[in-house]
């Protein structure tokens, strides 16, 4: 049984111009020990998914339909009090350290300590200190630095603390939202290496959200490519990266700069963002799609299977089935 399964989830934001559907009917499931990656450009709905799984959506957001199954409960129906006992304990989030994710006026160890105490208020001092030491060892922060304030840490160290904080209560699901985006490549690599090691050691469920396909590829077994609030292609890492089928996935991979494809790099000619006000269920990529025809405007895209694990959402099965287009 899956650790977490999301079925037909739609989320909208109430704006002055009406309801904007940021997430439109997505389904996926997370398996233990198989990190799941969400990749897509800014505004595609990746972070909204992460926040939904934490019950931290802003006030103007509304879950329009769908369910999120975790253990025996549907997270969509939880009350705020029930959420409080899930957050940090069963599902935890790793935030981006470059943002002010650590409170500047408290010492880092106290902030991690607080995460444990929130769910285990009766833990003994001895056990608590032992756990703190264990966590900081896990993320490789020297013990003598744990009483420092966040501003005394480097970006990489702050990110490690945030990881330690997320691991504090041994959650079953960890959601990492752009955890390495603001770090330089060397530190980024170290943090990813660490995340990978921790993930395989603790064998937790990991959802990794990033706009950086290389980062997602390096850590995730399964990939969901998102565009305009929809998952447009999903498959194993190998399937998505070596044989992309959806036109958007091809564009995304083609625009990625690497030393090998220097000559074949495609600078995509795309609108800045997807039109989220389109009716639900229609193809959001049509305005930017090179293969778009009249049928795309009227038809609803359907899931086209390529393999048992690999599928893409499109109106035109021919395009999806033919890998060499």
């Amino acid at each position, binding site marked *: 049984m899956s650790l977490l399964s999301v079925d037909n989830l739609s989320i909208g934001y109430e704006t002055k111009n009406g309801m904007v559907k940021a997430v439109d009917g997505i389904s996926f499931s997370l398996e233990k020990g198989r990190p799941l990656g969400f990749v897509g450009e800014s505004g595609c709905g990746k972070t909204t998914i992460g926040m939904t799984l*934490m019950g*931290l959506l802003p006030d103007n957001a509304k879950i329009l339909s769908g369910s999120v199954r975790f253990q025996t409960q549907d997270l969509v129906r939880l009350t705020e009090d029930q959420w*409080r*006992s*899930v*957050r*940090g*304990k069963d599902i*935890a*989030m790793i*935030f981006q350290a470059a*943002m*002010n*994710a*650590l*409170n*500047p*006026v408290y010492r880092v160890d106290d902030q991690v300590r*607080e*995460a444990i105490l*929130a*769910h285990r208020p009766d833990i003994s001092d001895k056990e608590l200190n032992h756990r703190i030491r264990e966590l900081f060892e896990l993320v490789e922060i020297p013990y003598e630095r744990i009483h420092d*304030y966040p*501003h005394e840490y480097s970006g990489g160290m702050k990110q490690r603390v*945030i990881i330690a*904080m997320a691991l*504090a209560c041994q959650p079953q699901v960890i959601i990492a939202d752009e955890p390495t985006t603001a770090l330089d490549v060397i530190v980024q690599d170290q943090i990813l290496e660490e995340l990978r090691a921790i993930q395989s050691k603790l064998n937790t469920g990991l959802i990794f959200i990033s706009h950086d396909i290389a980062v997602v590829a390096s850590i995730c077994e399964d990939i969901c490519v998102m565009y305009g609030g929809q998952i447009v292609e999903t498959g194993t890492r190998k399937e998505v990266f070596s044989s992309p089928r959806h036109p958007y996935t091809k564009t995304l991979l083609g625009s990625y700069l690497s030393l090998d494809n220097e000559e074949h790099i495609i600078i995509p000619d795309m609108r800045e963002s997807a039109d989220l006000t389109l009716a639900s269920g229609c193809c959001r990529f049509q305005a930017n799609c090179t293969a778009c025809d009249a049928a795309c405007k009227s038809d609803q895209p359907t899931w086209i299977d390529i393999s048992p694990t690999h599928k893409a959402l499109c109106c035109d099965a021919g395009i999806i089935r033919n890998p060499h287009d």
Partner: protein
Amino acid sequence: MRLQYILAKFIEIAVIFFVILTMLFFLFRLSPGDPISKVVDPMLTPEDMAHMISQMGLDKPLWEQYVIYLKNFVTGNFGVSFHYGEPVSRIIGERLGWTILLFTTATFLAALAGVWLGKVAAWNKGKRMDNVMSISALVCYTLFIPWFALLLLWIMGFKVGLFPLGGVLSPELWVGDSSTLVKLLDLIHHMVLPLLTLFIINLGSYLLLMRSSMLSVLKEDYIITARAKGLSEKVIRDKHAAKNAALPVITSVGLSLAFSINGGALTEQIFTWPGIGRELIFAVSNNDYPLAQACFLLIALVVLVANLIVDLLYAWLDPRITY
């Protein structure tokens, strides 16, 4: 915090104070009005007048007067008040305590209440409670002090007769052998109206400041982090948001204490509170040069020291600031 920093700060204060001292000296020599006419009886003969002028050192060259002025300051000799005929230092000493008592009490009470109410208002942003609190705070903030003080005095003191019209003590209670408790209650009874005036006027600005500061802190990422840990809303509000949000209020408290002597002159005048501010108004309008000069110096000193205290307090409360 390093001792070195505090030392450097003291030197800085000394230098600024010296500059103010010098400016004051020249300002007083430039100001219109004649000190002689205030202390010297017009019936005196011109010879006697000249004698008095030379006794006060006013016939000496300016630079020599300046040196004497500095020497007197260093030795703590501020001269004798023209009006009272008493050493200025003694008059100031008597008045300062009353001013400090009134203003520190009012400022701290207002700051505590303002921080707490501002926090609650921000937390309930957009709700009825927030609207009522914000608008009331705005009204308090824009109140014209003399008008409000007179209104309070007229209604509570005169019409209702609940509180005395002015002063700090009832002489009959203090001459007789009343107990300390009775004297204390009498003092508080006198303090209520001026305290209320200052409290209400300060409260508005602290509340608005705390509210806006809290609102911006609530948008910070560490508030989401705190929520993600599963902390209760009360812990998030009081521990994670309020401590960060209260920092700007501390600056404001320091500054308002710094300007309490001159800023509170009107309140002191209306409630005949025997403090420095009222003495300053009196000294200026009566050309009591030595007294006015000492009052000005005191204001400068209080501003400088209050700034120093705010700096040190900040470093203690905000770990990001080290000196």
